[in-house]
């Protein structure tokens, strides 16, 4: 039950961050156009970035853990 709540918190955080970033990258004042193609591409790029970041961070944690730093 707890891990379910955490999964919801994670999904919410992801939706919020992607929305903020893709709104910022794809839409501009005075906001007349929706620019859906940009939003769709931005989402895919965000998820790919998430994977790269995730791998880099986890490999760094493992490295520190192997070398006895943490």
């Amino acid at each position: 039950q707890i891990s379910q709540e955490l999964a919801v918190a994670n999904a919410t955080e992801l939706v919020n961050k992607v929305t903020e970033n893709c709104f910022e990258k794809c839409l501009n004042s005075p906001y007349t156009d929706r620019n859906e193609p940009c939003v769709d591409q931005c989402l895919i790029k965000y998820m790919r970035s998430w994977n790269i970041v995730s791998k880099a961070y986890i490999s760094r944690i493992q490295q520190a853990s192997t070398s006895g730093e943490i």
Partner: protein
Amino acid sequence: KEIATYLEAENSKQKVQMSIHQFTNTCFKECIQSTNNTDLSSQEEQCLGNCVNRFLDTNIRIVKGLQSLQ
């Protein structure tokens, strides 16, 4: 039971309020050109309305996009 319903209603109201704070914060920064007067120009007013609607469009599109990725 009644308390639960009451708490849930308060909770949704509060979420709406907090979203309004967030949208006003974002859209004020992007849409307000001048603080040398107290009236909103018609461009500023239109930009604020569009900004909220485009933010919600983006949010919905991201949620649907993430669901289709699963």
